[in-house]
C-alpha cells in the first residue's frame, strides 16, 4: 500500500525499462525477398536512423517517469500512453513496410522487438487497469483503439506483411478452419458438459462411482494427446468398416471422429471435477436451512444448490474450453481440420508466418473465451450483481 503513494511503482518501472531495452536492442521487423528465404532483421535505428530511434524512446521514458511517483492521475495518464503506444505498433509496421519493402515480392516479418513490446505493453495495461480499479468492460474498450489502428494499417499500407499475405492467399480456407475449430471445440465441450454433469450427479449419489470415475478420468488425462489419437485409430477404423451407418456418418480412423472422442475424453476430467466440487462445496448450513424450511429435494437442488454451484461449474467450462481450443490444434495432425492445419502446414514448409496464421487466432480465441466466460461467472456470483 505504501508503495502506491510514496515510492515508485516497481512493476511499471521495470516493465517499461525492459520494454525499452527490447525495443532498441531487438529486431523490430525483418524483410525477406520471398516466402522461403530467411529475412534480414532491422532494428529501430536501422529503419529510421539514430535520431528517429531516440524519438521513439520518449514514450517509454515518459512511462517510466510516470511510474516514479505514481498518483491516480499519473497512472491514468500512463494508461492513455500505453493505449496510444499499442495503437502505434501497427503504424510502426506500416512505416517499416513503406521504407524497407522495395519489391513486390518482398515480405515483411514481425520481429522479436515488436512481440516483446506488445507483450509488455499488454502487461502494463493489466497492471494499470488493476491499480486504477477499472471495470472489465472499460478494460476491453481500451483495446478498441489498437485494434482499429491495426485494421486501418492492414487495409492501407501493410500489403507486404508476410502474415497478411499468408492470410490473403487462404482467406476462404482460413474462415473454414476457424469454423471447424470452433465446431469441434463447441461439440466437444457441449458433450462433455452433459456427460460431466450426469457423471457428477451420479458420483454424488453413489460414492463407488466417484472413486472409479475419478480414477478413469485421471488416467485418461495422463495419456499424451498424440498417443490417444493413435490408440483410437484402429478401433474406429474397424467400426467404420463394419458398421454401415457409422461409416455413412463419416466416422473413420482419422478425421473428426477420433479428434472429438479424444477431446471429450480430455474435457471430462476438469468438467466433472469442477461440477462435483461445486455441488459439494455449497455451505451445509444453507442446505440444512433449506431442508428445515420444508423445501423438497428437487427444490433444494434447483433453487439453492445449483445456483450456488453455478459460478464454479462455469469456471470448469471455462478451463475446459480454453484447454480444448489448444488441444484441437493437435487434432489437425489426424486430419480433423481446424486452425492446427496451418500450424502443421507451416512447420512442413518452414514458413513461420503460416504457423503464426494458425497459432495467433488460437491464442485470440482462447483469450476471448476466457474473458467472456470469466465475465459471465462474475455476473452469476451470488449477490454479485450489485
Amino acid at each position, binding site marked *: 500500500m505504501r508503495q502506491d503513494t510514496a515510492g515508485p511503482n516497481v512493476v511499471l518501472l521495470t516493465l517499461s525499462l525492459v520494454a525499452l531495452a527490447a525495443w532498441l536492442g531487438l529486431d523490430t521487423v525483418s524483410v525477406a525477398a520471398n516466402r522461403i528465404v530467411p529475412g534480414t532483421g532491422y532494428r529501430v535505428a536501422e529503419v529510421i536512423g539514430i535520431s528517429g530511434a531516440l524519438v521513439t524512446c520518449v514514450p517509454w521514458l515518459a512511462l517510466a517517469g510516470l511510474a516514479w511517483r505514481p498518483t491516480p492521475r499519473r497512472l491514468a495518464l500512463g494508461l492513455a500512453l500505453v493505449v496510444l503506444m499499442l495503437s502505434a505498433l501497427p503504424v510502426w509496421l506500416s512505416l517499416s513496410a513503406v521504407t524497407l519493402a522495395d519489391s513486390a515480392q518482398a515480405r515483411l516479418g514481425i520481429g522479436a522487438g515488436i512481440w516483446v513490446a506488445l507483450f509488455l505493453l499488454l502487461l502494463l495495461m493489466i497492471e494499470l487497469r488493476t491499480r486504477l480499479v477499472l471495470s472489465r468492460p472499460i478494460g476491453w474498450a481500451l483495446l478498441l483503439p489498437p485494434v482499429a489502428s491495426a485494421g486501418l494499417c492492414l487495409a492501407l499500407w501493410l500489403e507486404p506483411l508476410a502474415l497478411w499475405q499468408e492470410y490473403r492467399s487462404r482467406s476462404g480456407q482460413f474462415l473454414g478452419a476457424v469454423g471447424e475449430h470452433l465446431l469441434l471445440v463447441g461439440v466437444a465441450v457441449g458433450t462433455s458438459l452433459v456427460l460431466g454433469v450426469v457423471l457428477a450427479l451420479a458420483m454424488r449419489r453413489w460414492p463407488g462411482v466417484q472413486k472409479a470415475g475419478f480414477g478413469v478420468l485421471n488416467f485418461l488425462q495422463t495419456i499424451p494427446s498424440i498417443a490417444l489419437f493413435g490408440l483410437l485409430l484402429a478401433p474406429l477404423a474397424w467400426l467404420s468398416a463394419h458398421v454401415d451407418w457409422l461409416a455413412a456418418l463419416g466416422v473413420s480412423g482419422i478425421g473428426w471422429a477420433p479428434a472429438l472422442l479424444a477431446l471429450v475424453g480430455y474435457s471430462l476430467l476438469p468438467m466433472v471435477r469442477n461440477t462435483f466440487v461445486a455441488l459439494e462445496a455449497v*455451505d451445509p*448450513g*444453507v442446505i440444512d*436451512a*433449506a431442508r*428445515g424450511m*420444508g423445501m423438497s429435494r428437487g427444490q433444494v437442488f434447483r433453487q439453492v444448490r445449483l445456483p450456488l454451484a453455478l459460478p464454479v461449474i462455469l469456471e470448469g467450462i471455462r478451463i475446459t474450453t480454453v484447454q480444448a481450443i489448444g488441444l484441437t490444434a493437435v487434432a489437425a495432425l489426424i486430419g480433423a481440420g481446424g486452425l492446427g492445419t496451418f500450424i502443421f502446414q507451416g512447420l512442413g514448409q518452414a514458413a513461420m508466418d503460416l504457423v503464426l496464421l494458425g497459432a495467433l487466432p488460437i491464442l485470440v480465441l482462447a483469450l476471448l473465451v476466457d474473458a467472456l466466460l470469466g465475465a459471465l461467472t462474475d455476473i452469476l456470483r*451470488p*449477490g454479485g450483481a*450489485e
Partner: protein
Amino acid sequence: MIDLIHVTKRFGVATAVDDISLSVAQGELCVLVGTSGCGKSTTLRMINRLIEHSEGEIHIDGQQIRRFRQETLRRRMGYAIQSTGLFPHWTVARNIGLVPRLLKWPAARIQARVEELMALLGLSMEEFAHKYPHQLSGGQAQRVGVARALAADPDILLMDEPFGALDPITRESLQDELRELQARLHKTIVFVTHDMDEALRLADHLVVMHQGRIVQQGWPLELLREPADGFVESLFGGEDRGLKEAALLPVSQRMQPLGHDLPARERIGQQASLREALSVMLWRHAERLTVVDDDGQPVGELSLRRLVGARRDD
C-alpha cells in the same frame, strides 16, 4: 404442543438420544441445554424430521409427526440455526418470503408479510430489503433468520443455537428481543443452547441433557435451587449460582415499602434484576437503593440486607 414419548435415536451402534420423554406446552419457551454432543441438537432435529427417530413417538398437537409428509411438517414449523443458513444468492426480502412462497401464498400477501416481519424485527424496509446476506452484520443476519422462521406464522419455532456465533452484546439484545417477541406472539419454542446464562434468561421450561438423556427438567429457578446431581450443579457454575439466581429475580420481589428515612440517592427500576441492583450497590458504594417504577416515581426501597435476604424470607 410437542410431545416426545420414550424417544431414542441411534446412529449405527452409538446412541445419541436415549429414551427421553418431554412435553412442551403451547406457548412455552423450552430450552434444551447441555454440553456439546449431549444430544440436544439431535432432539431438536428429530422434531422436524431432519433426523428420523429410531424408537418412541413424537407428537405435534396430538398427531404423530410421521403421519405428515416431511415438507408439510417442516413448513408448519419455523427453523432458525446458528449459521443463519440464509441463501447467499437471494435478497433479504426473498429469503424472508421463502416459506410463504413454498406454501404458494399470493405475491401481494407475501410482500405484506415480509414488510410486517421486517418491521417486527426492526429491519428497515428501504435499507435492508434488497441487500444480500453478505452485506449484513451477524446480528442483522440472525434477525433476518428469525424473521424467515416466523414468516408463515408457524405455531412452533425450532431454534438451534441461533445466537451462538454473535458477540455478547448483540447476543444479549437479541435475547431480549426474543423474549419481547415471545410475550407478544406466544409461540411454542424449542431452543437449543450450550450457554447456561442464555438458557436461564430465556427459558420457561429448562431441560438439562447429558449423554443423550434428560438429567433434569423444570422451572429454571427450581433447577438452580435444587440441582438433581453434581453435573447439573456444575453446569450452573457452582459458586456462581448466587449471581445466576439474582439475575432471574426482579427487584420488586425483595423491596420494602418506602420508610420514614430519607430516600436513598441511588435508584433502580423495579423490573431490574437483583443482580443489577447488587452491581449498582457495589459500584456506587451504596447500601440502600430507591426503587422506582417505569415513570421514575419512587415505589419502595431495597437495602443490602433485604437484597441478600435468605431465600426462606420470600
